[in-house]
């Protein structure tokens, strides 16, 4: 019974969503949107669980003096600061998202630059992984190196200065072999998604039920 009820709920929800896709007439038409609203409400409440988990994890690190425990103080301080500025801005401007508010100030001047910094690191990681991938030790790696060199040269003005054919070859590589491989994978992903959904709706796939 403990397993049957979730399976029945899953079946009914999945089946109704499939029906709603083909029947626009009420009450089916907006069922999927309604389910998504329910999901959003549940997800909103689970944010409290997330907060609880984050605090517990960092308190544990501090009390047990685990490696990097000092940073947990920074995290907890940041968490408290965002909460305080959020509530303060809410009381002062009726919304925390007012551009003049302290909450938005901390978002624009602290969080956004931090996000940009992490994103900027990607350039260094691309260089190190490209170095490993393009070492021409096998036939495939050599092929990859040649293709990558053509594509990269085709994207910058110097490529066209070397030869006006390089941008054309670059476009061909992107539009023919690359796109064909990408679409092949996508067909598999979509079909796999449909069949996985079918397994879940029919109750064959139960691993997610614990």
């Amino acid at each position, binding site marked *: 019974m403990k397993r049957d009820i979730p399976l029945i709920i899953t079946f009914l929800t999945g089946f109704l969503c*499939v029906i709603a*896709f*083909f*029947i*626009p*007439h*009420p009450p089916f*038409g*907006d069922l999927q949107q309604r389910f*998504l609203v329910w*999901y959003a409400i*549940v*997800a909103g409440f*689970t*944010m409290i*669980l*997330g*907060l609880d*988990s*984050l605090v*517990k*994890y960092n308190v*544990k690190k501090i009390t047990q003096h*685990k*490696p*990097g425990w000092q*940073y947990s103080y920074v995290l907890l301080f940041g968490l408290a600061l965002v909460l305080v500025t959020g509530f303060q801005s809410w009381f002062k401007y009726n919304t925390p998202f007012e551009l003049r508010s302290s909450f938005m100030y901390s978002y624009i001047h602290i*969080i956004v630059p*931090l*996000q940009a910094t*992490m*994103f900027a690191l*990607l350039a260094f*990681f*691309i260089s*190190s*992984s490209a170095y*490993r*991938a393009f070492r021409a030790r096998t036939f495939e790696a050599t092929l990859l190196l040649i293709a990558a060199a053509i594509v990269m040269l085709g994207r910058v003005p110097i490529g066209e200065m070397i030869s006006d054919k390089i941008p054309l070859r670059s476009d061909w590589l992107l539009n023919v072999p690359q796109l064909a491989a*990408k679409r092949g*994978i*996508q*067909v*598999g*992903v979509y*079909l*796999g*998604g*449909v*069949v*996985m*959904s*079918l*397994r*879940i709706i029919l109750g*064959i*796939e139960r*691993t*997610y039920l*614990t």
Partner: protein
Amino acid sequence: MFQSIFILGLLAQPPANVAAFDTPNDEGSSITVTWEPSPADSGNLFLFRGYEIYRSDTPTGEFKCVGFAAAGATRFDDSNTDIQDGQEYFYVVRALTSSGHEDSPVAGPVASSAQWFNTQRVNVLAITLLISALVIYYIRRARAGDRLFVRKIAGLDAIEDAVGRSTEMGKPILYSFGLSYLNEVWTLASLSILHRVAEKCAEYSTRLLVPHYDPLVMSAAQETVKQAYAEAGRPDLYDERDSPFLTADQFGYAAGVDGMMMRERPGAVFWQGYFYAESLILAETGHSVGAIQIAGTTSVEQIPFFVVACDYTLIGEEMYAASCYLRPDPQMLGSLKGEDLTKAMILVFLAGAAVLGTAGVLSSHFFDYNGLNVLFENVVQWFNTF
């Protein structure tokens, strides 16, 4: 110049053949109005500003403006919330020119209604029924005792080795869902893989770290790990705090997981879920700490990054096949076989369409015959409706 503008302004004419009809394949409360462009609608925004659409309950009553369509438009969907199904309405389309406006004759009456079937989705229904029928057929065959072959998936076979290696090195294991949410199919597929990894971790008494981006996924993953530990007979090893929520911010999550990897130095890392630009930041950090990495994602854009940076990568559908591969019972394998046959049929269809397209071009070039080209265009249009 000014003279011609003046003349065009004077010659402004209303749009012709205005028609109003119930919007097809919708849930009601919507009426579509179509028209042929006004002769003054020449594409010059200075001379012709666009169309205003007016609605009234009676043909002679007061018409209320319900929307605006830019110059060049020939259609407007009136989906305002005040439209009631079954109530008759009348429409007028006003052409707005630089010198004034002209109204079309009244169109209507028309009433909106909801449809019981979306006829534009017949193709999707057909392919869904076909896939379902094939899957159910192969499940029945598998249940009847037919042996079904599944090819080796190296990434899944390597799970045990990865956990064993970590155990020997005395290091923990890290598992990430990326930026997945619980309402996505790949997250459920990833939960199956997590279950197997957690079972092995419990068996070898190895610590399993699962940092999260979404609290709902966190709850599901914590339950999955707890269950796996219990099934392996080691519920005492489970610690909820090893499966923490980090943040719901993309790069904040990447920074958090990177920090965790640098401090804990995991011996094996599993990237199983949906990833965006942070994929390479994570995988390269995993590589720098010397972890064996097994990735799996359905994000086509991120697959190359994982292929380059990780030891094994489950490409696209292999992730969905993981649960069948790890628990090869007849029902699961049957569904996999059904999927494969559908894929084979799509491949045959694509090959046939390619031959038809090529034959169309050749016949048009050498024999001046366009029939195959037209047939190919129809096939492409039909396929585009999916």
